[in-house]
């Protein structure tokens, strides 16, 4: 059905051009803090599904990041070291 085309996050992110750096610009400061975090809400509020709780750690799919900064402000423990990707890297929008 054409209405649902592009509905999944994978399809949505596929519309964005990325130039992925080799190293992550998003770093979990302390995985122990994530382990104790009762909500793990970054798994939900990130608009690009960067964060997922798997194997008792917060996995960071930094290559999906759209550089919005929600996690920087939204993490209840400010446990994410958030910087911009290296110059010229990360997302490039076509329309914006």
């Amino acid at each position, binding site marked *: 059905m054409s209405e649902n085309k*592009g509905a999944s996050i994978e399809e949505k992110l596929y519309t*964005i051009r990325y130039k992925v750096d080799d190293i992550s610009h998003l770093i979990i400061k302390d995985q122990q803090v994530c382990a104790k975090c009762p909500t793990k809400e970054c798994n939900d509020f990130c608009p690009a599904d960067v964060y997922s709780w798997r194997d008792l750690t917060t996995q960071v799919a930094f290559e999906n990041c759209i550089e919005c900064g*929600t996690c920087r402000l939204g993490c209840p423990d400010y446990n994410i070291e*958030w910087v911009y990707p*290296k110059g010229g890297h990360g997302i490039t929008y076509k329309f*914006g």
Partner: protein
Amino acid sequence: MEKFDAVIVGAGPAGAAAALEMARAGLSVVLLERGEFPGSKNVFGGVLYRKQLEDIVPEFWKEAPLERKIIEQNLWIMGRDSVTKLGHRNEGFKEPANCWTGMRVKFDQWFANKAVEAGALPVYETVALELIREGNKVVGVRTDREHGDLYADVVVIADGVNSLLGKSLGIHKEWAPDQVSLAVKEQIFLPKEKILDRFGLEGDEGATIEFAGETSAGMTGLGFLYTNKESISLGIGVMVSDLKKSRVKPYHLLEQVKNHPAIRKLIQGGETKEYAGHLIPEGGLQAVPQLSGDGWVICGDAAQLVNFVHREGTNLAMTSGRFAAEAIIAAKELGDFSRTSLSLYDRKVAQSFIRKDLKKYQGLHGLLNEIDPKLLFSELPRAINEAAFEMLKVDGKSKVSKQRFAIDHIKQTAGGTWDLLKLGWKGWRAING
């Protein structure tokens, strides 16, 4: 070591405006941008207003990449499967144009190029890592390029909503989650004729719809649907503090919006060619920091200069960039780049529409925090739609009983007559501060 009159961090509307004005005045300026090109990281709704850009580039509409001239603006109050509409269409919005839809990736490139044509030195694909300071004075910027230190009399901090540089100065604390909204958006392409027909437009006319209600799933939020030449910008912004609590995924929220019956029919058959997300500063006047100091000024989103009630941000950014440039040009004539000298910029902002408009709505941020968003963004919109449905439905019940139902239903939703009046009064105060 080469030293510039100014280094501008960020080639968005604020930075490009500052660069353009200073370059025109003959100052040596560097325009820094972390993206591949100006605009490549930028997102807005997006409506561009004539007035503030015209002050910088007269008759810009003859050359700038614009989409549609907005002749109709709507506010929709959304129920789950219903909508109550308020709107205004006027031929008077055409000559002179009041505003256009636009795309930031195209517009920002054009605008930054104006600055470059005027003599600003573009340094793109370069991240400003930190401010270089001597005591309390800012003297330059450290970049992620090799030997990438840039020195200047003034650094213009126009690095957008996340403003890592502004934060490093300590002029504002980290934005609280209730001071920013996350907006997600799709650019949905449709043939031109479909857009003209669906919205009742001709030629380059355009329409906008803002919508609030059950589409934000009980969160403080506002949706938007704007017509472009051959696409529709559809998105929704919600306060990050509410988003944290709701556990709703932003892109699921957007999918729900796309499936609302009133919206689905406007976008059906369209092809999404881009998904985007961005934070919007919505802290209001209380969140605006000191705007200048020894060797620095801060502009645009980085300084929370956004009027979220009227979805104006780009124009405040441009004007703040222009004012900052004027203050720096004056400071150069004096040879004094101290806080005292550069505070001319703060005064220009204070005397302009920027501060006046932010002041008018200064109570709104507090009000939105005080009132349960479920009441304002879910229960009341639902009650309004149910009341309208009942009023218009002919089913043998008397008009008197229908009217009584409609009024009582809205009152009860607010918690009774007194609470509804209080809400109305508080709302009025909050938007007339």
